[in-house]
């Protein structure tokens, strides 16, 4: 008898624009001590599935249309609100994606930890504050919080993202649940922290003998942790089997597509980097700014004495974790962030020495692609207007030829010509990124800074956009600075890679050289933390 057995679960959202089937006939089961991973891209219904088990979906618009979810022989979908309250936290607990927003900023973590104990639904089991505090501190210790006694009275904002997720895990485990649901618990974290949290979850599962449902968009993450995998797409089951079978012998086309979309291995064909003096030379660049959110206006050394060169025609990778200063470096090179000291030489011209008006003619030659394809497009301009703006402004096209050139651009980046008059909100994330790429290449630049261009995208879309970027670099003879936190992506696309940590350039090498023989401990740590989509590894 499985601990949780879900049969034919159906959930739909009744919105103004009609009924959306978010979960369509999903069945699965989890046993004690077992980990089931539910994998899917955005909109696959993986989170909705789990939220419906604990009645955490907003109703309306969500409606559970059918199915049974037997937890210990008790149907979760039909039990009353009072019973559900007893189940939540005590028998089934949950941790969420974003540890920044999932903890109450107004209460200390200690207070939030002991709440399930001191307000236990079963009044006879309620603990006093004092005993609850002892238990909570023990648990904080177990999940790896240093100095738990003194940290007990700290507020969430005093912890780093990884530490907050540890607190979340402690909070979920405090009433010794039998099932733990993890909703993308490491997605918001840096890769080294992700590795630590995954290890912690695995270890706690063993020592506490709980069943785990692990929701993720990342097959790589799942490979090392799951016993069984359920692959979902648009609310439907695509594949369901043991982890080994799913990764090595899947018959599902979609699973195969997902697996092949994960960037792995070296770049297939190097871009034609030219020898000689670099197109861009960055010399001892420093970008400092004051942190106004800090009461002391602390000076942040976002880029701290960085030097390197980018050869014409190459794709130069820049990797680092959040806060490493990689984005600021990209913006500093384009003179979008004011530099504090040092120089950026672009084919012989010191860009930093130019006045604001003198820089304007250089701008069309250097373009940028941003991470968030929604925020980087003006919501009140159609695709046509967005793409025509640089063409007309820089007199690359005139009124007669502009339509034709816009259409050419749309063909180049793989957008249907018929969607020219649509607005950004009418497109999917991947299509929006295509628009942004189209705008970046419209002014016929030589050099492009791509700042995490695929981080916000699903893995299959990510593969398509990477392919597009590679082909454009090749066709248009572009030079690119490719900024990413994702080392696998960088490896698959870049010729050379620089590693940044806390504003400094730690290591710089040819991509394969770096992978084979990382010199610095930090680089080694980063490379070791990459999850691989291979259960045996």
């Amino acid at each position, binding site marked *: 008898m499985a601990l949780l057995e879900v049969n034919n679960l159906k959930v739909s959202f009744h919105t103004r624009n009609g009924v959306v089937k978010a979960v369509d006939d999903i069945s699965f089961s989890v046993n004690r001590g077992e980990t089931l991973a539910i994998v899917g891209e955005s909109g696959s219904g993986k989170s909705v599935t789990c939220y419906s088990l*604990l009645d*955490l979906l907003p109703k309306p618009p969500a409606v559970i249309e059918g199915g049974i979810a037997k937890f210990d022989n008790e149907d979760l979908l039909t039990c009353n609100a009072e019973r559900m*309250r*007893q*189940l*939540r*936290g*005590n028998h089934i*607990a*949950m941790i*969420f994606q*974003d540890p920044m*927003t*999932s*903890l*109450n*900023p*107004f*209460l*200390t973590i200690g207070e939030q930890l002991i*709440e*399930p104990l001191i*307000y236990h*639904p079963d009044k006879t089991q309620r603990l006093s504050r004092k005993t609850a505090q002892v238990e909570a501190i023990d648990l904080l210790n177990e999940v790896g919080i240093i100095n738990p006694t003194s940290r007990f009275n700290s*507020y969430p*904002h*005093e912890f780093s993202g990884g530490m907050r997720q540890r607190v*979340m895990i402690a*909070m*979920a485990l405090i*009433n010794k649940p039998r099932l733990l649901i993890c909703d993308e618990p490491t997605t918001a974290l840096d890769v080294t922290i992700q590795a630590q949290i995954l290890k912690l979850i695995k270890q706690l599962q063993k020592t506490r003998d709980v069943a785990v449902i692990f929701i993720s968009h990342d097959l790589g993450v799942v490979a090392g942790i799951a016993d069984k995998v359920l692959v979902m797409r648009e609310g439907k089951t695509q594949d369901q089997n043991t982890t080994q079978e799913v990764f090595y012998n899947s018959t599902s086309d979609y699973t195969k597509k997902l697996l092949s979309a994960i960037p792995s291995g070296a770049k297939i064909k190097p871009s034609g980097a030219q020898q000689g003096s670099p197109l861009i030379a960055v010399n001892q660049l420093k970008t400092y700014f004051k942190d106004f959110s*800090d*009461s*002391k206006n602390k000076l942040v050394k976002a880029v701290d004495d960085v030097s390197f060169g980018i050869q014409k025609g190459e794709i130069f990778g820049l990797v680092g974790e959040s806060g490493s200063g990689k984005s600021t470096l990209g913006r500093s090179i384009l003179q979008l962030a004011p530099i504090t000291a040092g120089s950026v030489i672009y084919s012989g011209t010191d860009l930093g020495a130019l006045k604001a008006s003198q820089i304007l003619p250089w701008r069309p030659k250097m373009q940028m692609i941003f991470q968030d394809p929604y925020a980087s497009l003006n919501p009140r301009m159609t695709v046509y207007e967005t793409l025509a703006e640089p063409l007309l402004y820089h007199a690359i096209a005139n009124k007669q030829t502009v339509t034709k050139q816009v259409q050419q651009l749309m063909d180049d980046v793989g957008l249907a010509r018929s969607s020219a008059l649509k607005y950004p909100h009418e497109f999917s994330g991947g299509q929006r990124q295509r628009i942004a790429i189209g705008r970046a290449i419209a002014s016929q630049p030589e050099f492009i800074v791509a700042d995490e261009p695929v981080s916000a995208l699903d893995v299959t879309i990510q593969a398509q956009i990477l392919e597009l970027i590679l082909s454009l670099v090749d066709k248009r003879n572009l030079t690119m600075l490719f900024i990413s936190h994702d080392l696998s992506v960088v490896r698959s696309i870049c010729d050379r890679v620089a590693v940044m940590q806390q504003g400094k350039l730690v290591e710089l090498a040819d991509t394969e050289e770096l992978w084979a023989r990382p010199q610095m401990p930090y680089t080694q740590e980063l490379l070791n933390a990459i999850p691989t989509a291979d259960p045996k590894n």
Partner: protein
Amino acid sequence: MLRFIVSRLLQAIPVLLVVISVTFLLIHSAPGGPFSDEKAVPPEVARALEAQYKLDQPLWQQYVSYLGDVVRGDFGPSFKYSGRTVNELIAAGLPVTAELALYAMLVALFIGISAGVFAAIRPNSLQDYIPMSAAMLGICMPSFLLGPILILIFGIQLEWLPISGWGDIPGDKILPAITLGAGYAAYIARLSRGGMLEVLSQDYIRTARAKGLSERLIILKHGLRGGLIPVIAFLGPAFAGLLGGSFVVETIFQIPGLGRFYVTSAFNRDYTMILGMTIFFAGLIIVFNLLSDLLALWLNPKLRQQTRGGN
């Protein structure tokens, strides 16, 4: 925290200086002197009066000496209430207005917060629409309209409650407090609904639910703290508004408070009185803005620690 209070109080000094200067200049640039409408005053008497109120000195001297008086907390004698100082008149009216404002604020907070929270629990249901329509009505029914209507209904038609005075007959404080508080109750209801809706959609509310906490606890402990921040920020401006509202309510209900003094002084062109009261009101408003800021600060642990760190 102390440093924050001190720095805010220091910032209040230029504000008060601006208030004093502007009001002083305004009043002294008024067409016609303070005694010009009293036709029967012989010139020598007028001159004596002017000397008494220092009006014969050059403007800057008057300004400097007035500033000195104000710093010492002395607003000088009243023009029209002969023999009484502005300080005495303020001292007489203040307790009445303060009591009225307190009751009105209690009415506003109690009705406003409970209606707003109640509505936010089930948005877009009857439980939301009914209190929110009432709130909209409250906003669109200004005190100078609500007061007379309440008097008509409860005072004259039903004869349940007295319609004027303050503390003379039992129950005569009810209608003024409701009249003054109703509009603010409506605003607070809308603010607390908005704040609660925002907070209740946060991830950490979902976390609290997933922990198995009761809905009551989720709303009272996890929801209110963040949800009432807009209301707290509104308390300072609301207090300033209550002072203004007291002009109307005290006039309608014939309550001998500061508001009514102010309006009569305005009609009587009692310049020293207006000057003194304006400065006094400005000081009060600054203090209440500071208090509401402090309260908001105290409720937000992040801000609280930053100001502490600044020490």
